[in-house]
């Protein structure tokens, strides 16, 4: 997967830009507040439509402009596509080869990116929803059909919650209808998550050892109150079904769905101790870095393609040897396209297959 051309118009502080990226390394350097992260955000949006930072559509449109336009020419193993995103204050429109995309699930997967930035430590320190988002996004990067399953699940969950909220006396047949749908989609989500983790966790562990050293054992586990030892989709469905049964009383009083994949979490440990409670800053960053790298390796191994890697100001957050590791990895162990932002060119441990741009007040200048 390769971006061959990127056009930006009236996006954030960038009025107008066109770049032809290198197929390997692209470095955007400049002082603080010049627009480096904005460029990565543009690429991210062309992949995910939603940004990695909280924002409204208006925040994305350059001050005093009507709308923002992003366009990329993408090469996917020989076939070329033009992906275009129009951002209006009222909404976004996506175009594939000039055809308006009606259902986003037909679009997702057109560009796959993995992003690593300073905000990402929140992934481990914050609440469980960010971790569910990480795992679901990783699955969906590899398997776009997953978007449909999670969409359906969300919809069933909303209907089921509405039923629990509104009705004083719930029609038992109707409740059992929504239970069936809930279990059908919920068990598929959990099954996909477990299947993903089965190959993901060993990769994560070995990557973490490479980043630090072999005396550190990283571990990650799916954490759920109801799952038990279930592994097959059938078993998962049975457990989820029983969990619903067991939570009837609690649901009656709280009036929403209290169990299910929308409440599950990932727990992380380092040498058997909770990372969240005991890990240092650097260990947190290393762990997240290992997660992102493991995600790339996973996509590469299972699906034989490298996603586009976006590294936002990462070097300034890592110590020397972690930074060295990162560049060793992107040079020798992955073959995809990488976009890097930095304030200091000497952080960048690369000497070939490389293109530099200087970012200055929203201007992108080749150098």
């Amino acid at each position: 997967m390769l971006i061959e051309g990127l056009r930006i118009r009236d996006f954030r502080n960038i009025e107008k830009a066109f770049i032809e990226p290198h197929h390997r390394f692209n470095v955007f350097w400049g002082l603080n507040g010049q627009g480096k992260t904005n460029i990565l955000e543009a690429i991210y949006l062309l992949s995910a439509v939603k940004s990695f930072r909280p924002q409204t559509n208006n925040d994305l449109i350059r001050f005093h402009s009507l709308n923002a336009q992003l366009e990329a020419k993408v090469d996917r193993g020989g076939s070329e596509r033009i992906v275009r995103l129009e951002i209006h204050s009222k909404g976004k429109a996506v175009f594939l080869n000039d055809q308006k995309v009606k259902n986003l699930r037909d679009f997702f997967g057109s560009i796959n990116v993995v992003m690593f930035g300073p905000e990402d430590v929140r992934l481990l320190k914050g609440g469980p929803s960010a971790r569910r988002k990480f795992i679901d996004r990783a699955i969906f990067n590899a398997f776009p059909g997953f978007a449909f399953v999670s969409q359906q699940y969300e919809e069933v969950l909303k209907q089921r919650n509405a039923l629990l909220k509104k009705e004083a006396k719930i029609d038992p047949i109707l409740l059992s209808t929504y239970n069936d749908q809930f279990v059908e989609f919920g068990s598929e989500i959990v099954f996909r998550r477990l299947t993903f983790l089965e190959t993901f966790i060993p990769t994560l562990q070995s990557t973490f050892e490479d980043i630090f050293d072999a005396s550190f054992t990283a571990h990650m586990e799916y954490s759920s109150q109801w799952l038990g030892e279930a592994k097959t989709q059938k078993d998962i469905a049975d457990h989820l079904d029983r969990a619903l049964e067991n939570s009837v009383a609690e649901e009656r009083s709280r009036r929403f769905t209290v169990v299910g994949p929308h409440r599950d979490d990932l727990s992380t440990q380092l040498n058997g101790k909770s990372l969240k409670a005991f890990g240092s800053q650097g260990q947190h960053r290393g762990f997240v870095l290992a997660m992102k790298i493991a995600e790339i390796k996973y996509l590469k191994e299972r699906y034989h393609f490298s996603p586009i890697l976006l590294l936002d100001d990462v070097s300034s957050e890592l110590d020397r040897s972690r930074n060295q590791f990162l560049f060793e990895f992107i040079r020798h162990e992955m073959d995809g396209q990488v976009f890097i932002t930095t304030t200091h060119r000497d952080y960048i441990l690369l000497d070939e297959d490389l293109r530099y741009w200087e970012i200055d007040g929203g201007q992108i200048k080749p150098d």
Partner: protein
Amino acid sequence: MQTRDPITNLINALTKLPGIGERTASRLAFFILNQPDELAENLASALIEVKQQVGYCTQCCNLTKDERCMICQAPKRNQNMICIVESTPDLRAIERTGEFHGTYHVLHGLISPLEGVGPDDLRIRELITRLGQSKIEELIVATSPSVNGEATALYLQKLVKPFEIKITRIASGIPIGGDLEYIDRVTLSRALSQRRELN
């Protein structure tokens, strides 16, 4: 809301129709105003007539001006087979195929707690009464394959279970003439999982 200006009243009334915004409504209003009186008179009486005369068929809840709709009255239709649809337009779509020779049951909606629509808001009770009264051999649930369409189908399946009637669901999958390459993945994987044996 009624104002004292008849033109404004007409425009306001027209904007209540689906798909008609302020601009279209005012275009329509002035068009009607500039036509001979006959157009307005015909339109007005047709509107009143349709509301006064058209009601639900006492058997299948299809729209009709008689007690029973044309389909329920047709002697050649198989009365033991009922195709359950969400709405009259859906019924008409199936009728146009000319492939179905049974009768229908129109629900007039799909179950959706989120929008405050429960089984009692649909014509489900009428269906159950009907099952108790005559010997039905097969129910075909032809609601759309959306979450609400599936929920309604599943609900009906559970509800009629005690009657021990054969109940089937229309297939969903790849459109005829569809190019596999352009079919979305979900439709494709659903079609795969519902594949059937050849011979």
